[in-house]
């Protein structure tokens, strides 16, 4: 506990916000569950593009996503609920 207290006092910077990038396994499962895996394959997305899609899907509205990915099927996006984390 001493370490925790000292860290919180000395390094307020460590109070981080936000969500980390997913592992490839977690991302793949989420994209599969959302029915987006065939979209990813059709677009020939590399690892980085898939991570961007995953993170945007978790954070952005359907309108914002549609603007970025016009052919994205939006039906399964609810699967990106934060509960899975």
């Amino acid at each position: 506990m001493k370490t925790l207290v000292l860290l919180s006092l000395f390094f307020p910077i460590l109070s981080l916000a936000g969500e980390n990038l997913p592992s490839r396994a977690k991302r793949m499962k989420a994209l599969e569950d959302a029915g987006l895996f065939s979209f990813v394959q059709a677009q020939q997305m590399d690892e980085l593009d898939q991570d961007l899609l995953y993170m945007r899907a978790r954070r952005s509205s359907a309108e914002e996503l549609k603007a970025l990915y016009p052919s994205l099927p939006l039906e399964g996006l609810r699967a990106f609920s934060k509960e899975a984390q």
Partner: protein
Amino acid sequence: MKILLLGLLLALPARADIVFFDLNFSPMEITAVTAAAKARGEKAHIFPERTPEQQRDLDKYYRLAQSLQTKLRGCQGADCGEIIRRLAEVQERLQAITAVMRKVENGELENIFASLDARSVKVSTMIFSGHSGGTGQVGGLLGGIVVGQVRQAFDKYPRLLEPVRAILLWGCYSGTLHSLSGIWQKNFPSVSTWGGFENRSPLGIRESSGRFLKSFLLSESKLRAAKGLNDAHRVFRSLDLVAELDGTAVVRDMYFTYDQAALVSEMLQRCQAFDNGMMDQFLCYDEGRAGCENPPADHRGALRDIYNYLQKNRHCHGSLKEKYPQLPSLEYLIRLIYLDNVKKNFVAQHAAESSSFGRIMKEVGPVPPLADFGKSTRKQDMEAFGAMATGLNALGFRDLSIVDRPNWKPAMLASMAKEALTNLLGPSFYRTFESSCVPFSWVDPGSREKDSCQFSQSVEDPLPVTMESQLVAMLAHTHIDKYLADHMLRGFWIDIPRDKEVWKEMNKAQLRLQIKDLEQLSDRSALEEARLALAREKLIHLDGIGPRELAAEEAAGLRGLVVLTGEKIEWAGAQPHGEVAKIALEERRRIMERRIADLEQIAQGLQP
């Protein structure tokens, strides 16, 4: 008739059982193991053993401690003091509950193995659950084991190992390829099935951890019986929560994650593809060297290739990290690739702090205005960071001993602003972390999300109460930390005579370095001067003493520190925002007092 029955019983093969080591209190996993054992027609043995009352009390206080620790991370000002106080109380309760239990420590593992062996228990699966760093150790509130101890215990009771088909390691990073194959399987080649987590694992009080464990235990035999890699991967992918929890498995010579299945040898081979050239490419852009002045505007090229490689080959992370300590995390790399957008968000969100940043930085020399960081290249940023470091050094800011100089405050503020700025935009200690204070959404322009790099607080004028409170704490601890370092009290948890000798030699080497560094400074502060004199004295003294004197000296040093801490507690209590610092210091003093008592006992038992 009785003799006949007994004879029949003895003739039956011993039933296979699951042995579960609950090293950090995991009630949901106990439920899962019990249910899975029943379904497998086996018995579950849980260690350390506990009464239902102990289990109930552990549950209550363990959950309370977790919740208080979460609150402590997000608290502010005086609230933190109350949380620290409550947390200390709860932890004392937990210590009292576990003190009467037979924790898995100090040879208890061998006692457990002896008892299982004596009862002819046939172990099919063994599970170690607790905190882990993926380096062959698992532990927590209820004990701890390292792979060597398990090896030793099995060597002593080899009959126990023969029927073991699976060992599951239920802790963070325990399921990396290196942990499962390189550490555990290497020690126990007869065990065919291994399971764990590639990243962080959930606490054992969470339902998810139990669900995955139960599913694994119920599918274990199917995994082994699968015909080939693809069939086994299909079984593995069907495990409950396997992807969500980053579960992994090794079955004989095959390694599985949800997204990949390959032979262990093939997985290891892939790590060879990362070479010096790739690392140099990263450093070239990260440091804005000639030819890499800025990451490409189309976000493609070498940095992206490195990102794709590292994401696809996360299993190489451990071995690559040993070879390249500066290997960036994915979090860092993606922000570097999209540095243009990160900087646009930074300038847009912090425009209002431009003038106070300029005022603070005036002390350290020619630093560009804040808005310039929106259009500058990485190379230009690196030059600006370099100029800030030079300016701070000229002010005498080398470490926290700056507080002993008359002009400490402007230099401290400038240093904090520089730190916050580099954490946002430059190479920083976040380079190798799996997290960042820059929100992910900054990779796109126009983000509304705020960063948590504390830049705004660092350039706020006047200082906000929270920052002042942290500053008071920092200043109170500065002298204590210097005292600890100067009196060589950093090794004060070592109790073995031989280790004390090793520690002494290490410290002598450190002292020589410290003396050399301090002698090179032409403008030593009063504290630095005192540290130099003490280091010279200590080096001469260390030569002539043994373990017993070392323990006695540590106790004496700590007694001095208790007095110094008392002074700082009074000082912090007198400051307008010193309450949190005061409580933290009191806690620190309490730990030191306990340690002094231990050291005095140790010194009595050691040879002079």
